[in-house]
């Protein structure tokens, strides 16, 4: 799709919204939304992916998406919500395939959305396309449990 250089420069200046340290223990349900926020992050580059996905002691679901993809816009928030429900047992990494084409190619993404379940750096499960909440719940539980 078409881009304008100004917009691209603006996006590259956007600071990371999440801290890079490991998860902290938070008291009470009042903070459940912020746990959700920190469970989900946007991958910044290849080495960020290495650090926070491949080398993550926790299981991570990787959501490969694109700006031009309608179904991705539905799946993304839905998956985030289900990940948040797992109370920190799993994290979610979002990868924009146009910004990180090398990563998408490395993990053989053809169509979007493609979601990979990763544990200890290995792809243990995956699906392509939209799923409903129940299916996502089952997918996540399997990843955490296995």
């Amino acid at each position, binding site marked *: *799709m*078409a*881009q*304008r*250089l*100004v917009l691209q420069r603006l996006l590259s200046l956007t600071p990371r919204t999440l801290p890079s340290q490991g998860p902290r223990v938070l008291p009470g349900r009042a903070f459940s939304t912020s746990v959700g926020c920190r469970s989900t992050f946007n991958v910044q580059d290849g080495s960020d992916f290495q650090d926070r996905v491949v080398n993550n002691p926790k299981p991570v679901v990787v959501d490969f998406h*694109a*700006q*031009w*993809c*309608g179904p991705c816009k539905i799946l993304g928030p839905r998956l985030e919500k289900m990940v948040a429900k797992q109370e920190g047992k799993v994290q979610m990494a979002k990868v924009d*395939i*146009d910004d990180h*084409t090398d990563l998408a*190619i490395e993990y053989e993404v*053809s169509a*979007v959305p493609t979601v990979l379940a990763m544990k200890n750096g290995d792809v243990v499960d995956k699906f392509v396309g939209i799923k409903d909440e129940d299916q996502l719940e089952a997918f996540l539980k399997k990843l955490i449990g296995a």
Partner: protein
Amino acid sequence: QEAAKYNKKVMVLDFVKPTPLGSSWGLGGTCVNVGCIPKKLMHQAALLGQALEDSRKFGWQLTEEVKHNWLTMTESVQNYIGSLNWGYRVALREKSVAYENAYGEFVGPHTVKATNKRGAEKLYTAERFLIATGERPRYLGIPGDKEYCISSDDLFSLPYCPGKTLVVGASYVALECAGFLAGLGLDVTVMVRSILLRGFDQDMANKIGDYMEGHGISFIRQFVPIKVEQIEEGTPGRLKVTAKSTNGSETIEGEYNTVLLAIGRDACTRTIGLDKVGVKINEKTGKIPVNDEEQTNVPHVYAIGDILEDKLELTPVAIQAGRLLVQRLYAGATRKCDYVNVPTTVFTPLEYGACGYSEEAAAETFGEENIEVYHSNFWPLEWTVPGRDNNKCYAKVICNLQDNERVIGFHVLGPNAGEITQGFAAAMKCGLTKEQLDTTIGIHPVCAEIFTTLTVTKRSGASILQAGC
């Protein structure tokens, strides 16, 4: 992809130099990103607007006023293009074609330097090279053109509605863009230096122009802009255009939100190091002359597409030429690309489909006395109920009297012109004659059936005005 099929090691270097206003795009070339695809989608958007109006007469009750949102349309169009860009990346990867988003230039007879957008350089060598760098819009070379004017490279991703627009040019790009912008409800003026659609059948070109004028598009003829100034910044801003007459010294001024330049396209052959490998180009036009096997004067360098001298600038032609070339090089095939009877369609508000000779070219090649032109107006059934435009749609075939009245030219002005023309192009490839056309039974009620019942010749001067079915 074709070469990779034959187990050749292939690399593609694709790079888009941003427009003066910063627009750029992904893999796929002009057609996908800033040509045929977005153009046809926006043309469709305009047609749908018309359809909504027509629908009232068919009983649909539109309670709200029908308005158009430019951003909604551009977002949808760009999303689709994004999926195509990605699709091409995947296809190249699946066929094991290496791809670099880098600007390629020859630095030696078998060596190319690839520079990416960060300025990093890499060198690649190959046995053979294929140049398909296409063209980019030409600018006028007047004060304010690069700073304030846009081109088709910018239009299809413009992040704001262009508003009151001046389209400079009379090419199919100019007329198609003017057409859909007006169809979306914008105030559009077209500034034309001399004739419309140079190279196309002028009888048809004039009918297209008349139709557009009759539908609210203003034409300023025989003027060229000499200065563009900014009155007010904005998205869109306000621009003042000063133009001079092509015969006389009269100058005029006009105020517009957007000025769209569509005066022609220049081949991207001047800064790719062709001198380093010895490929000759036409210095004036930048185009590359090739033989009928798409080979340049340097045996291991080939070229296809819009950059070729004296060849049609159409996507399917380039694709076909490329595929056949590879099959000749690596699969022992002998078929060459057939550049004769290539059908085309201009997607102006009244669409124009054509295959073969224009009336002028036929008269010049065969002699006016040796051709017979059959023609007729027609009224699409779908337009009758809403009461639209009778006697504007037009069908014409040109036959060679010295060759069994072979159909050598096919022209149609009307809705779905492209769909109509495709089939007749295949028939012409088989040597369609007027008699075969006459003995073909028409499908009723469709526009295309008119071609099976053409009886009036231009020569007779008889009337072709239609009354109805």
